[in-house]
């Protein structure tokens, strides 16, 4: 059996720079930064006060068959982004219903926000026996995918949630790619979703990794990341079926790679990060010199950026392609990050522009790349590599290519 070609035909996005593919694209082009004061939890007493939140989100607009309060915020995001993606692909959920498919959603924290609230209630004196069963029911991470399947009534879909921390979005994209490519699935809804959580904010805060004002990847004065929420879901299908229905194709997925540092719980490992990019390029059949743009993991922490750029240089040499960090605009959306990165990469390919690395002042000599500071540029892109790295050394890189009908 010949492997099928896999194309990306729909994008659904929730982000601090805009919801929906149109606003998201505009935000990327304009170089918007979605940082703002934390409103999702009481940030009293924290020394850092900023995060990237999703605004103007009305759950009932997207969650139609389930009482919305039964779903945690990350699950609501996942459902909303999936509905957006299907609609953006020009599909009705009914079109997917009877055909075998995959719904794979990556997440770092799942419904940790719901757990935080239960723990807070306990800390304030609620005994476990009196915990709110509806709130407890939101907790299980697998509901991020299950709720999509139930809401869209996708009766032949396999629902999985991948918990590979901050690279989970790319893991999900890769899983969908393999399933569609082999013919196991006719379609895949893949991506990532995370809601802002106090727990993760407190953890990064304690580790000294949260910036005081803005996230400035690759900048000499970068202080760290800003935690964020968001979701990105992509529709993947095989090229022939996309052609047959006259679908608009954003990009072709050319391949991906995944590996594990097996080195340290939190510190990334240069050689292993280089290796995951090599694996992805080999899978895609693409040479390093054919890559026009890297969408970096680019958290803006001192260690990540140096390690990642060293790895980029290992693979691409001393003149690497433009390397941008979307987290300057979007914050660190955790499990959604590389899904949003894949979405942005596809949009960059489709519309011929490079989204910028905003908040940028002076490039750190140790991160010497053209990070396209502050302003998007028009560019004729053919191949983009989208990186995702994670605590636990879970790395994944996805390679996307411009689609041209011959």
């Amino acid at each position, binding site marked *: 059996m010949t492997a099928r070609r896999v194309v990306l035909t729909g994008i659904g996005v929730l982000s601090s720079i805009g919801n929906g593919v149109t606003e998201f694209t505009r935000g990327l082009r304009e170089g918007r930064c979605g940082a703002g004061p934390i409103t999702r939890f009481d*940030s*009293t*007493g*924290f*020394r850092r006060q900023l995060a990237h939140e999703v605004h103007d989100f009305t759950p009932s607009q997207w969650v139609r068959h389930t009482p919305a309060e039964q779903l945690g915020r990350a699950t609501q995001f996942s459902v909303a982004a999936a509905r957006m993606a299907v609609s953006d692909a020009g599909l009705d959920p009914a079109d997917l219903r009877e055909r075998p498919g995959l719904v794979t959603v990556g997440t770092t924290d799942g419904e*940790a926000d719901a*757990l*935080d609230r239960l*723990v*807070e209630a*306990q*800390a304030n004196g609620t005994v*476990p026996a009196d915990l709110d*069963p509806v709130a*407890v029911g939101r*907790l*299980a*991470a*697998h*509901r991020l995918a*299950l709720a999509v399947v*139930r809401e869209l*009534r*996708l*009766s032949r*879909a396999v*629902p*999985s*949630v*991948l*918990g*590979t*921390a901050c690279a989970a979005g790319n893991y999900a994209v890769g*899983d969908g790619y*393999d*399933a569609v*490519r*082999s013919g*196991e699935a006719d379609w895949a809804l893949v991506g990532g979703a995370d809601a802002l959580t*106090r*727990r*993760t904010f407190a*953890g990064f*805060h*304690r*580790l000294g990794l949260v910036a005081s004002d803005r996230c400035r990847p690759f900048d000499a004065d970068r202080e760290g990341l800003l935690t964020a929420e968001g979701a990105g879901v992509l529709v993947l299908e095989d090229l022939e079926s996309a052609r047959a229905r006259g679908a608009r194709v954003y990009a072709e997925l050319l391949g991906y790679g*995944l*590996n*594990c*540092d*097996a*080195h340290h*719980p*939190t510190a990334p490992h240069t050689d292993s990060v280089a*290796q995951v990019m090599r694996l992805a390029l080999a899978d895609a059949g693409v040479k390093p010199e054919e890559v026009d743009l890297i969408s970096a993991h680019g958290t803006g922490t001192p260690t990540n950026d140096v390690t990642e750029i060293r790895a980029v240089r290992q693979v691409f040499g001393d003149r690497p392609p433009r390397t941008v960090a979307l987290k300057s605009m979007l914050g660190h959306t955790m499990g959604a990050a590389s899904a949003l990165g894949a979405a942005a990469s596809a949009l960059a390919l489709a519309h011929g522009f490079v989204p910028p690395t905003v908040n940028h002042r002076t490039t750190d000599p140790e991160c010497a790349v053209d990070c396209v500071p502050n302003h998007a540029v028009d560019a004729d892109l053919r191949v983009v590599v989208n990186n995702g790295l*994670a*605590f*636990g*050394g*879970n790395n994944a890189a996805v390679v996307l290519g411009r689609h041209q009908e011959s």
Partner: protein
Amino acid sequence: MTTVAVPTDRHFITAWSAVSPYGLESADYARGVTADVAADAGDGSRAVPVPDGHAGEQACLVPGFEVREVLGRAGTRTMDRATGLAVTAVRELFDEASRARRPVPVGTGTALVLATTLGSAQSQHDFAHASFTGEKPYDVPAQYMPNVLMNCPAAASAIRFGLKGPNTTLAGGRPSGLLALGYARRLLAAGRAERVLVGAVEEYSPSRSWIEHHTRAADETPGPLGEGCALLLVEPGNGIPAGRTALAELLAVDARVDVDDRLATTAEACVRAALAAAGVEAPDVWAAVAGGLTGRTGHVETALLRRLFGPEATDRVHVHTHIGDTAAASTTFQLAALLATAKGDPTSHGRPAVITSIDRDGSVACAVVRLLGEET
């Protein structure tokens, strides 16, 4: 003696481990699940009282499992229970293979795919609790930050044993272990790993207990919670080293969700699709092992299996009555129990078997394997 043809595009279970309420070793588990239930103490399970759970609660714990006693003091300072159980299960599988002089290679060719509900609910709970009760809200134990992530058990196992291949943590509710098998098959089919350790982990902890307590349906009559980690080594037919025995061939995995409140219909469609994909006829099935949920949902599953495969097949393998409710790990423990039971029964050789799971939220999954016996 029959020679089992081993083609290249097929996937085989060639080893397993189970850190279970019967002990750390697969032999403990095999002995436990194949023993006559009545021979066990009390109600047949391994349940012991757990003082931190809800009133009068009992649970099936891995006996005497203290992470640093089992794994030593090096590199274990921040390991929580879920992580310790997973690392131990990997160690046990590797050690047993090495004792049989068929060591499992580590490095980039070996993937680990681990299913779980949340990772360690207790670690997450404790971390958040520190934020609410500390002097400052950021007074959280930073060294435990990796433990609040679901991928901690898989990542820690990779660090401990040098597993540099794909390392994936998957959440899928009770059918998680079967979804992980499907995922592992995709990795192998795409050539992303030469072999996959695939399984699931679930810890007992007061936090998990309370979550489970509030998640159950009113009509359930649940047994005690169980814990542990079970792992299968899955290898493609052309990747099995000489001397390692294929225990079972993985023929099919089907998973889907009841989206129309027609659970029985969905479950039957799932099982029939898996049988069809496997090329297996229901009357040939040697054993059918259900997911162990009680109440109406569980009854749908057991009634379906009995109707399709008959009481002889559905009564061959016992799991959950022995080790308790292992939630996301239940299906991998079902598979391990199937392999252990089949090993002692020559009538299983060459016959297909079925593993199913249904969750409260309408997820259903079914795997079909062919039992190959152990020809040594």
